[in-house]
Structure formats: C-alpha cells, structure tokens
C-alpha cells in the first residue's frame, strides 16, 4: 500500500513536472493572487515580479489584490472558505496549521518532488511540512540577531561577545557608562517572544524549545526556570530600557538611534528604519546571539514568508506554475536584493545581495546554526498559546517576581490548548 502510494505520488510528480514545462507557454484563464505585502517596498517588489510572470504568460489574466498586512491575518479565514484566490501569501510552520487541518490549503508535495525545488529549497522544507506533506513554498526569510551600535562599543572598548559571561560583562560596562544595553518595545508583545526564543534555545537547545512550544514540555520545568533565571540576570542589571511595555518595536528604535541604548535583538527588517534614521554602516553592526550553555548547538530564528494555493482555487495549474516561478533562482535573487525586500533568498542557487547584514545573516544561517532553524515564538506555538505566553513574558520583564504565578498560568493554558 505504502509503496503504491509512493509510486503513484512519484508518477504524479513526473506528470506534473512534464505538464508544467509543456504548458509554460500555454497558461490561460484567470489567476487571482492575494498578497499581504502592503508596505510600499515589498508591494512594489511583488508587483514587479508578477508583471514579469505576466510577460512570460501573456494569455493569463492576472488579478492581484494587496491587503493590509494586519487585516490580512483575519481576512484570510474568510477568503479561503468563501471566495478563494489561486495564490495567497502566508507564514510557515504552525501558523499554517489551522488551514492545513481545515483542508483549505492545497497539498503541493508534487512541486517539492520536482528536482528544481527538492534540491534547492531543502533548507526550508521542514518549515513547510505538516503530516509529511508540503503545503506551500517560501519566498523570503530573514535572520534575527543582535544589532548593535558599533561606535558605542568602540568608545567603551567593547568587542562582539560570544559567551554569556562576555555578554553580561559588556552590558555592565554599558550600564556603567549611563546607557542601557538593549532597547525593546513590548507593547505588542511579540518582541519579548524573540528574547525568550533565543534565551531558551541557548539555555536548553532547539529540541527542548520546540517541545515547549508544541506543548510537550512543561512551563514549570527546571529547564524553563533556568531560562528565566538567565533572563532575570539581565533584568536585574537594568539592561533593558525602562517603560518598554508602552512602546511598539518602532517606538523603541529612537533609543538606539540616539545612543541611549546600545543594542537591539531584532529581525533584519530593523536595519532599514535604523539606516533611514541616519545610522551609517560604520555605526551599525550585527552579531549572533551568544552561547549560554556551553556545548549546546546554536539554533536561530528565521521567520519564513510563504505562498500557498488555497484548496478552493480555480486555476491550480497556473498557480503551481507561479509558485515554481517565485522560487526559481533568478527571481529569488531579484526579489530579495537590497533594493527590493532586502532579505534572504530561499533558493540555494540564488545569490545574496551585497549588503553586510544579509551576507552575515546568510552565513550565520547556512553554517553557524547547526541546532536548527525556528520560525518565531508566535509562529511555532499555536496562536492561542503564543498570545497567553507572550503576555506572561511581558509581565515577567516588568515584574520578574511574578514568575511562579506566570508559569503556573501558562501551564494551565497548555493543558487546555494542546488537547
């Protein structure tokens, strides 16, 4: 039975591949694309990419709808069931699970069986896989890490730390100089999730972190307590800016720009606004989050944005061709370069833009992240758990003494959510 399934899947893949190449010139009908890339730069990138696809397929009527990124997160439920487009953007890993389980995303394992994708996109395959099948393709991802003010580090005679002790020693010197070590804005909670991701992955390793976020490990375990104890060391030092619970991540940027805080644990998207605010590449630099428990393999957060075919799509053939187009090496190089998304391409054959943060990030993710690649706190954990937990993390950052209460609450939520 199993082998029969396998052979038929393989046969289907070959068929699909041959169909794909045969029909590349002859795609007809309508192709409806829904995008959540509503910010100006990504929007322009996407529109340019789609117009190239249109040029290749002149007989195809492409209709693109761009929806506000935040609004998209709630609207997707409606349009996937009622009025499905042929292609829609979304996020990888657990964030796509509700739609996969509700049968609203098309199984695209056939695409992943094609050599062009299987060989070149292997690094993100895990993030796209649920129940052994793939449900979409990635189009971009970006690294997380510590962005810091190099000029402040130089002034205080500090160098990039690699261990937890060095990190704390650096921080103490920064505090002694009357500055804060890290800026952060936790009003919308998720930024605290980034800190927890790194502290927990470095303290207990990638596998434990995933067990915790998928409900297999307890929030009241000794491992988690150790992570919070490490975090508390920083909080008690006064490492984070005051009143961070009132700021969004953007509102926390000025502290770093003005030099009141030396570093920011963030995704690579923080680089653009920091540069816009006047920081030059000489002032701004990046280092990988330090080792905490010696010997634990480093793992990184690298959130991946994706394209999917809704199960109710009308023109799945054209949609598949579009996905092939999006992940092809040239398109990946182009849409992820510095003028466009300014992120990392998912295709191993693509080249990374000559931007120092992208180069460093690509280097880090491809060779210095042996533990694994996580998506992000609120993408790896189910949405409901993420919300309760991130609220707890914020509370911990403001009132570290409430830890026992917070952990007990999270464990109760865990029992309810992962049934």
């Amino acid at each position: 039975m199993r082998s029969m399934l396998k052979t038929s899947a393989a046969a289907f893949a070959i068929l699909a591949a041959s169909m794909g190449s045969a029909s590349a010139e002859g795609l007809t009908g309508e192709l409806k694309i829904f995008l959540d890339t509503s910010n100006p730069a990504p929007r322009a990138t996407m529109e340019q990419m789609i117009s190239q696809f249109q040029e290749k397929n002149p007989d195809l009527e492409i209709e693109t709808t761009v929806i506000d990124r935040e609004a998209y997160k709630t609207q997707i439920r409606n349009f996937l069931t009622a009025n499905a487009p042929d292609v829609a953007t979304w996020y990888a890993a657990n964030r796509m699970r509700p739609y996969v389980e509700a049968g609203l995303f098309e199984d695209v394992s056939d695409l992943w069986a094609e050599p062009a994708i299987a060989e070149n996109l292997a690094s993100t395959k895990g993030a796209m896989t649920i129940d052994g099948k793939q449900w979409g393709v990635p189009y971009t991802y970006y690294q997380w890490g510590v962005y810091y003010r190099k000029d402040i580090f130089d002034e205080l005679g500090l160098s990039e730390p690699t261990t937890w002790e060095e990190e704390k020693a650096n921080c103490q010197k920064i505090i002694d100089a009357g500055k804060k070590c890290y800026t952060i804005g936790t009003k919308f909670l998720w930024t605290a999730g980034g800190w927890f991701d790194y502290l927990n992955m470095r303290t207990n390793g990638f596998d434990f972190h995933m067990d915790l976020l998928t409900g297999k490990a307890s929030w009241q375990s000794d491992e988690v307590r150790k992570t919070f104890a490490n975090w508390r060391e920083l909080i008690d030092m006064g490492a984070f800016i005051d009143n961070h619970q009132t700021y969004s991540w953007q509102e926390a940027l000025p502290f770093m720009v003005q030099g009141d805080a030396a570093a920011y644990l963030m995704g690579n998207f923080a680089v653009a606004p920091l540069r816009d605010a006047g920081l030059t590449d000489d002032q701004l630099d990046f280092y990988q989050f330090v080792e905490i428990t010696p010997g634990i393999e480093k793992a990184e957060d690298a959130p991946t944005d994706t394209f999917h075919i809704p199960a109710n799509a009308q023109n799945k053939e054209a949609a598949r061709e579009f996905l092939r187009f999006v992940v092809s090496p040239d398109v990946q190089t182009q849409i992820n370069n510095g003028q466009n998304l300014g992120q990392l391409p998912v295709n191993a054959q693509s080249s990374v833009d000559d931007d120092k943060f992208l180069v460093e990030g690509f280097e880090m993710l491809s060779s210095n992240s042996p533990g694994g690649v996580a998506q992000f706190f609120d993408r790896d954990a189910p949405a409901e758990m993420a919300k309760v937990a991130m609220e707890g993390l914020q509370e911990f950052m403001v009132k570290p003494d409430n830890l026992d209460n917070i952990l007990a609450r999270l464990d109760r939520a865990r029992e309810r959510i992962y049934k």
Partner: protein
Amino acid sequence: MAQASVAQDHQSSWWHRNQQQLTPWLFLAPGMLFFLFYVIFPIFQSFNLSLYEWDGLGQAEYVGLYNYEELYWDEAFYTSLKNNVIWLFLYLLAIPAGLFIALFLNQTVTGIRLYKSLFFFPFVISQVVVGLVFTWFYDPTFGILNVLLGSVGLPPVNVLGDENWVTVGIIVAGLWPQTAYCMILYLTGLNAVDPEQIEAGRLDGAKGWKMLWYIIVPQLRPATFIAFVVTIIGALRSFDLISVMTNGGPFGASRVLSFYMFEVALSEYGFRMGYGAAIAVVLFLIMLAFIAYFLWSMYKEEKAR
C-alpha cells in the same frame, strides 16, 4: 341610503377597510425587519454559539456550558470585569463635569459660540485621535505629563505602562469627549429652564449651590437622564481607546469585556468563537440590566405624569 353605504363597504377591498391600522405597520416594517435580522437574531445566535467550541473554520463542537465554566476560572475575565466596573463609575464623572461646563458657558458674552464649539470639539474628532493625543501626553520619556510632574518635583509615572494606573489613564482620555457630549446635552437643557422659577427662587433667598441643586438641576432631569444613558452605554462599549492606547496591555491589565471578546474571538491570536460569544453574552446581560432599569424608570415617569 343606509343600505347603499353598507353595500359600498362590502364592495371596498379589505385594504381599504384596514388602511388605518395597517399603514403604521407598513412604515415600521423595514426598520423592524432590519432590527430583527441585525440585532435580535444575532443575540440568539450568540447565545447558541457560546455553547460550542469553534475556530471559525472547522466543525463546531457542542460543549454545553464549558465556555462559561472556563470563564469562571479565567483571571483575564475578572480583570476585564473589574475594569468594566471602574469604567462604569469613573465615566459617570462626565455628567457633573459636563453640567459645570454647560453652566459656565451658559452666558452671553461676545464670541460665546466660538467657546462653545471649542469645548464641543473633542466630541467631534475621532476617538482614535483622542487616544493618540493622550498616549503622547502620557509618554514616559517625552510626554508633557511627566514634564509637568517633574516641574513640581514629583517622580515620573508611566501611566499606560503601570497596571494600576492604566485603566484610570484611559478613562481620563475618554472623559474628554464624553464631557463635551454631556455639556451639549445640558446646554440645550438649560435653554428650557423656566426663568420665572429662578426668579421665584431668588425672591425666596436661594442662591449659589442651593439654587443649583433645588431649582436648576430638577428642571434638567430629562437631560440628566439622557446623559446617564449615553454615558453608561459609552462606558460599556469602550473599545477604541483601549485598542489605540494600550492594546489591552500591559499584560492584559487594561482590557474590558468588549476588548477581551474581540481579542479571543477576532484578533490575530484569537478565533475561539464560542468563548468570545460567551463573553458577549455576559456583556449583553450586564447591558440588559442597565437598559431594563432605565426603560423601567422612564416608564414609571411617563405614568406619573
């Protein structure tokens, strides 16, 4: 002759005979239909939905009163409920504040219309703008509040980041437009105050607070009634200010029931439709109690007349 008219009646259609009774119902029909579909029907739908567990996508699962049991154990629910009560009481301050501003503005000076419209201004602008303005006002690093506090030697406070102050801080922002609303209600009410009664009160030696309390305020009863109703409903449906100013934070300390319902049912991390519906039912029952009380007292008053 009489016979002829009877015959006429028989001939005239059913419509002609009942026109007088039917016309009002016909005019009411569109309104009633919409009310039925958009208000009454969803109420029962929410009741029904609160008995299910449903993520908005898959199959709804009947769970009986489980959602309410869950609510009973939910700390966040009690925080929201407590905040709703604080909102109810503190928001009522808009009524006396509105009354005093109305009394103050109820005079004939050149340019009084301009002053009146300036006082009414906060009610005209969007709640979102009000929220943003107050967020900047409270900002712990560059907000003017802390500058003012510092100038009299007080330590800075982070109003929106402190779980004990945040609700009060948001209510103060909400009072700004709500006071303006109550002021307008009282200004129109003051136009209807009988000058003869004031005159008579004066002859009897009433002035100042006594004049206000025994002569003016009783005559403003209708305005007070409306001000109460709109303020209480306003307090219970407070949502936009919370969403703009704190997004429910810090760590959920400024949530009220309506915001919590939105969060669990409709926000990015939500989609527990049944649980949201259960919160909606609780909120509905609270509102129902107030509105029933007001309708009852209004009915009593009508009868007394």
